[in-house]
């Protein structure tokens, strides 16, 4: 496997696996991210601070007072040479989503029109997509989730919204996302989940992690309210929505 090492200053470098967005390349990124985590758990890779996976590259952050790029690079090479298990088990996450409230899904009609579908067909295509969390970024807990049914492909909105509510479910290009905070956003809003992608009160405040497999499940307005109440009260059993498995990797 040929990778490119790119400098990100003297505190990080990037291990680039290719120049395309594909499940195969992202799988290699995530496998190296996991391999680094295991090596560190065994006391290896001294001076490495953290790794940051993205679509096709893993950024390796290090402390130049404890190690050097020259020392670390061969160790990363060795991990890659040992073989990256790209079929690692991932967590299965289910996101309950209410598509039926017009306040939750202001763009559903427009998406249907532009993709020449009925709103019900748009919902069905979203529900039928097998999603994978590729990368988190832009804001804490915001996941870029690839795998959207290609028939729903639309570019971002020409005019981004200045403010949209927390937990809005949106689509753009070949991805879907869930906004962790009230924030600006340029994607098409087709539903809302009662789950919070970021909750400071939880021991692990970020719900999704790179590598998670993810599907959406349709819920009614009443079901939405019932779950939302528990989320707000902090009494939700989150394991209902997430299988065991490698979760977010801490420091």
């Amino acid at each position, binding site marked *: 496997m040929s990778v490119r090492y790119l400098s*990100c*200053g*003297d505190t990080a470098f*990037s291990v680039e696996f290719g120049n395309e967005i594909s499940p195969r390349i992202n799988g290699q990124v995530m496998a190296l991210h996991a391999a680094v985590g295991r090596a560190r758990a065994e006391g290896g890779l001294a001076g490495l601070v953290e790794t*940051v996976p993205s679509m096709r590259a893993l950024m390796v952050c290090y402390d130049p*007072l404890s190690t050097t790029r020259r020392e670390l690079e061969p160790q990363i090479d060795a991990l890659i040479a040992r073989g990256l298990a790209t079929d690692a088990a991932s967590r299965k996450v289910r996101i309950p989503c209410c598509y039926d409230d017009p306040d939750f899904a202001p763009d559903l009609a427009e998406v249907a029109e532009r993709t020449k579908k009925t709103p019900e067909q748009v919902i069905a295509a979203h529900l039928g997509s097998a999603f994978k969390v590729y990368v988190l970024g832009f804001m*804490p807990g915001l996941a870029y989730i690839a795998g959207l049914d290609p028939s729903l492909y639309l570019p971002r909105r020409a005019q981004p919204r200045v403010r949209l509510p927390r937990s809005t479910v949106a689509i753009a290009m070949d991805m879907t996302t869930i906004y962790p905070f009230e924030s600006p956003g340029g994607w098409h809003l087709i539903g809302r989940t009662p789950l919070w992608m970021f909750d400071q009160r939880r021991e692990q405040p970020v719900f999704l992690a790179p590598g998670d497999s993810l599907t959406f499940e349709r819920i009614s307005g009443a079901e939405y309210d019932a779950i939302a109440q528990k989320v707000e009260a902090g009494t939700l059993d989150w394991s209902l929505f997430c299988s065991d498995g490698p979760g977010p990797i801490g*420091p």
Partner: protein
Amino acid sequence: MSGLKVVRAGLFDTVQDLGRTGYMALGMPTAGAMDRIGLTLANALAGNPANTAGLEIGVMGPDLLVEAESVRLALVGPLSPSLIEGDDAPPRPIDSDRSHLLKRGQVLRVGMVEGSSTAYLAVAGGFDIQPFMGSLSTYARAGIGGLKGRKLAVDDVLPLKLDSAPAGEERKLGGPFDYGSGPIRVIWGPQDDYFSEAGRQTFVSAEYKVSKEADRMGIRFEGPAIEHSKGADIISDGIGPGAIQVPGAGLPIVLLADRQTVGGYSKIATVASVDLPRLGRLLPGRIVRFTAITVDEAESLRREQEARLQRAIAGLQVARPAGGIDLTRLYEENLIDGIVYEREAVR
């Protein structure tokens, strides 16, 4: 509860330590002090480990009322004179770059930050605030960390771990720390191959001015446009501290403490960590140049700087107790008549 009560808010004062590392994979920016040297020295003067959270003072400091038996605090940075008020004495100007002992009821009026964008205040023992994801650093954009996830506001109370200052003498820096001068040193990459040879030459030969769009997230520069050869857009990847991204218009943006974790603009170069504290102090209107060095050079420059920082900490000097009079100096300066305030004695 012991604390420092904000009786007047400054402009952008946030609790910061050396950053929230370990969670970038979850989209969590590291945040942390813009000038790690300033925070480290303030902590050393207050008798704290380097990674203790202090107050980062942006542009204008707050007025803080001591609601504790006593507190030792240290100010580091180019501040206009700060004042201590209270105990029936006239307001007393105090120096930066040293520690001071304050008693209950006294008010510290932190001055304006002059000639830099940041200064630091550290308190002996630190703030009694629960860390969030292992750090006290404030990331205001998401309301995370620090005191209530935001900059200080009037009537906030910064809780203190200690109700009275530990015994010991006040300390001062042996001299100002040399942050270095000359061009800002950068390392090419990760996407220098997205730029034309002419574009790379522009970047390392032209002068760039710090625009008004400069904050904890980053600094947008004004100057000649840098020419791309493969376009401004890349498949989003990780953004390290000091990454210099160049969007389509060709003007560089240096990304700092509150930067997002991943981004989709090509990054021509990255500021060497040795010079990041300088970036954290740059004010709008300042002119800089960039010059390229290798990773090996940057790593060794950083280690030299760290050694100098440790020497500065080892070389802290005893300062007279706040409010006391330096008799030796008084006699030397032949000022034995009349009332002498500390500030005059210090000069």
